[in-house]
């Protein structure tokens, strides 16, 4: 039987106290569309259970269940009888995964890099610029790069998310 790791549990609770209210009814998993499509491989109730037990290695290192599968559809948050803010808890767990240098899906890095480099997740390509002209749409003025760079520096974003994989 696994022992509760109170230190890690408390670390999560510090981020979101509502974790404490979970009574493991399983409503979240029963309405979760990802749990349904993955035939239970993904299981939000289980992630909450592991959080209540503070099972750091399962949550952060092994990532079982794979927390990155959550679509953030917020159905569980809407339906949980105990008002546990599951997606908030999952977000802080994912932040911990990323910021302790553990692996996370490439697509998230690609998007973050685009934001760091261009301020937007998708830049305007020449064919799209032509299409905008055809449709008589105004130019899109991109965000001030220097301003964004300075703001991202203030939040320490690049370092935190280990974007260059040098940790």
């Amino acid at each position: 039987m696994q022992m509760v790791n109170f230190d890690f549990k408390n670390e999560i609770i510090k981020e979101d106290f509502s974790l404490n209210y979970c009574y493991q009814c399983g409503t979240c998993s029963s309405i979760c569309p990802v749990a349904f499509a993955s035939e239970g491989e993904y299981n939000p109730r289980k992630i909450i259970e592991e959080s209540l037990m503070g099972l750091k290695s399962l949550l952060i290192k092994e990532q079982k269940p794979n927390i990155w599968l959550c679509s953030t559809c917020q159905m569980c948050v809407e339906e949980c009888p105990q008002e546990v803010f599951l997606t908030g808890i999952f977000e802080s767990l994912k932040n911990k995964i990323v910021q302790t240098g553990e692996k996370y899906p490439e697509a998230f890095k690609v998007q973050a890099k685009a934001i760091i480099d261009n301020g937007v997740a998708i830049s305007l390509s020449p064919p799209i610029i032509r299409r905008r002209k055809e449709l008589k749409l105004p130019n899109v003025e991109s965000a001030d790069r220097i301003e964004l760079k300075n703001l991202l520096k203030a939040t320490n974003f690049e370092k935190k998310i280990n974007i260059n994989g040098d940790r």
Partner: protein
Amino acid sequence: MTYKYFLGCVIPGRLPYLEASARKTFEKLGMKVGDQANYSCCPDPTGAGQLDHLTWLALGARNLCLFEESNSNILSLCSGCTETLKAVKYSLEKDNKLKEEINSKLNSIGKKYKGNVEVKHFAQVLYENIDSIKKKVKKPLKDLKVASHPGCHYLRPSEIMQWDDPLVPKTLDELIEAIGADPVDYSLKIDCCGNPVEKSNKDISLLMLENKLKSMKDAGTDCIACVCPACYQQFEFNQKEVNKNSNTNYNFPVFYITELIALAFGMNAEEIGLKYHRVKTDEILQKIS
């Protein structure tokens, strides 16, 4: 109340024809919506925030500041952007210490967030003008069966979004009725389209889409109506992938709700760039002509 557009990244950068239909619809409704320069990625509520919540708040707050400085409210063309901007506003309103922390970051670029900006999803603004929409309809889309896909971030979390019923939404179907079409009731209406899961597992993302498509098909729909570019892309671009994986033959035309409204207002397919759709819309155009 004056609005300016928050276009987000996906619509201007990939789906400009959806933007055209929205701009033309609001114009026709007699609403002047301005443009705002200098905003960044909202950032994506399913992306950047998952990596660092603080950065997500700071970038979101910077975007709010830009509109606040110009005394205008935000009319967002994307559900993801709407949720981010509303959630950032909500978080900073609820927690003064957090607001101070974010303002200390914003201080490095000479900005300060005060909290005087309203954020609205474009479909909310449309719904609030439903009576004038009804009056402006020239060509009711008679007998067209439309399955609305509200999508997650248009509705939930309801405590933050404060709009429509998160589990039994009705605003989009009422808009569909307002332009003379028939809203289709289908069992998985409030389910996620699967788009965000593509970042971590494409197969599961496609299965989620397939579940939705099947439910829509069973209910006998002619086409799909979306209010979010992420959902739009999932339906429009990935039906083919579902067909490849599962030996199905889904081929539903997918519309932004503003495209349907523009058509009902009497605009033609060319004006709003329907030719850019991947799933061809000809049959639908015939049906409503």
